[in-house]
């Protein structure tokens, strides 16, 4: 088991290295000269050449990559081409905001989803379960931007209770933070909860068909306890795996939600930087997203393996 984890960690490091290479390379092949775009109407040939030298674009790519990588590992992501300020400074606040959004969403969604999933599995077959299943399925397939748009329409436009744009800065107090977070979080929570609940129901439903569940019932164990004590214990692994995976998938929802609500997070920063061709920022954002994603997937794999019944040792033979 320890061997497995160590190997996976090493593989993950290698993976991150490859990812950094890909990110760097992708930004390298951007059409259009970076310096030219940055200078805009002041782009005379001399200015462009000078800026290229200043930006270090003349050096061979391998050298630039290594320099970038070395800097990134120490926390120095270079300078923004647009604002000329340190990328790390730009990042820190944005990363915190996005982490806040993701964190609050997960904290609300996961317990809610597991509870719903368990309840639906227990009521399997009854009309309530069928209706609830369809609703949950529909919600899990709904795009976040539909939900977000509807919420904005209802709460911001019609009722005026909440802002359509999320104002959040380092000085914001708790009340303002909550008001800024409410709609974005709600849009995300609904979809993520539905997805996790759906998987949980399938997992528990599957466990409930196992022979030892029938045996427990034949011993007179009441339904609720059968689920709580017998089923859940065996469901922990697969459910943890599902939760970790869905947290990783949050990234696509976050991109959309931050756009709609103009939430000052990392995803919006990345989109803006892509549009303004601000390479160092794009590279940094991509790396952070990718690294988080990879680590969450690793966590999911490890959890699945640790709780897999097949990882239990073999049964001894009957002695004759």
């Amino acid at each position, binding site marked *: 088991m320890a061997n497995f984890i160590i190997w996976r960690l090493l593989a993950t490091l290698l*993976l991150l290295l*490859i*990812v950094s290479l*890909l*990110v760097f390379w*992708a*930004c390298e*092949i*951007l*059409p259009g000269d970076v310096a030219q775009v940055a200078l805009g109407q002041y782009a005379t040939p001399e200015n462009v050449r000078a800026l290229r030298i200043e930006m270090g674009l003349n050096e061979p790519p391998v050298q630039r990559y290594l320099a970038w990588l070395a800097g990134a590992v120490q926390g120095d992501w270079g300078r923004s081409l647009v604002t000329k300020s340190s990328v790390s400074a730009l990042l820190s606040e944005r990363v915190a905001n996005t982490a806040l959004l993701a964190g609050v969403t997960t904290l609300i969604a996961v317990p809610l989803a597991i509870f719903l999933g368990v309840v639906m599995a*227990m*009521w*399997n*077959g*009854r009309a309530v379960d069928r209706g609830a299943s*369809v609703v949950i*399925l*529909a919600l*899990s*397939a*709904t*795009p976040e*931007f*539909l939900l977000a*748009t*509807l919420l*904005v*329409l209802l709460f911001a*436009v019609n009722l005026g209770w909440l802002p*359509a744009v999320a104002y959040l800065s380092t000085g914001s107090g708790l009340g303002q933070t909550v008001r800024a977070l409410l709609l974005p979080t709600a849009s995300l929570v609904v979809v993520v909860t539905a997805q996790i609940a759906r998987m949980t129901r399938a997992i528990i439903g599957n466990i*409930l068909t196992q022979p030892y569940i029938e045996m427990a019932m034949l011993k007179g164990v009441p*339904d609720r306890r059968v689920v709580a004590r017998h089923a859940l214990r065996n469901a922990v692994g697969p459910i943890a795996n599902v939760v970790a995976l869905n947290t*990783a998938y949050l*990234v*696509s929802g976050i*991109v*959309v939600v931050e*756009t*709609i609500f103009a939430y000052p997070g990392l995803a919006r920063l*990345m*989109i803006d930087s*892509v*549009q303004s*061709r601000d390479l160092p920022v*794009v590279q940094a954002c*991509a790396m952070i*997203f*990718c690294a988080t*994603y*990879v680590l969450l*997937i690793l966590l999911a794999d490890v959890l699945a393996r640790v709780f897999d019944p097949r990882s239990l040792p073999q049964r001894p033979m009957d002695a004759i």
Partner: protein
Amino acid sequence: MTSVSASKRPSPTLLISIAILSIFVLIGLVSLVALPQDPFDFITDEPFRPAAAGMWLGSDYLGRDVLSRLMDGTRITLFMALSATLLAHLIGDTLGLLAATRGGFVDTVLSRIVDVILALPKIIVGLVVVAALGSSIPVIIGIAAVVYSAGVFRIARALGNDLKEMEYIKLARSRGEGMGWILFGEMMPHVGKPLATDFAIRASFAILFMSSLSFVGLGVQPPMADWGGMARENLGGLSTNPLAAIGPAIAIALVSIALNLLVDSLDGDARH
């Protein structure tokens, strides 16, 4: 806990999902020949005019007919999603089954490449590649195809590996049967259904993915519009003509939900 009985009749969810999907496919086909108005024409000076005669869903931010643009967008969105998923399956199924039956070096190399692709969050890949190559329809279809073929590869490979262990496959090999018979004679009937199911689900992912790209401005570029792009351009008019932005968003949701319901009801029938 109550018992569940098997039903021989098709479930209502199955029928509803097929109905929804058929309607949209029909709209897409109709849009090739006839539309209420020209989707690119400014038919009114007033942007975000609420629904009226001749403009059943009102006008968009430039004064164009929302309904016509929506129908036009149906064709674009569905075409892009289907092409991407088809490509993804062509690549993923072939390579996946090959990796499973061949094993060894081929399997290892392909699996590692797929691992790297799957390690990248799809939308981030989309953003970066669009930044590099610009956002045109072929580029977007290409990104989606590559990214999703990795997932299809995993599934096809897993199917192949499971089948490999079946006694009748082992017996066929021990007879001395060639790869051709084993893949097409013995395995194919088993992989048809699971792969078709995956196709439907993946198509729904593709629609959501590509719409999200358009929604953040990096997808289909104006004046053409797929549903995601329409939702984006008309967000500003939520207070006057909300249908302009919500219409396309609902369309995306409907197709995605219908596909999910379809797959779920087919799986359910198989379970019983």
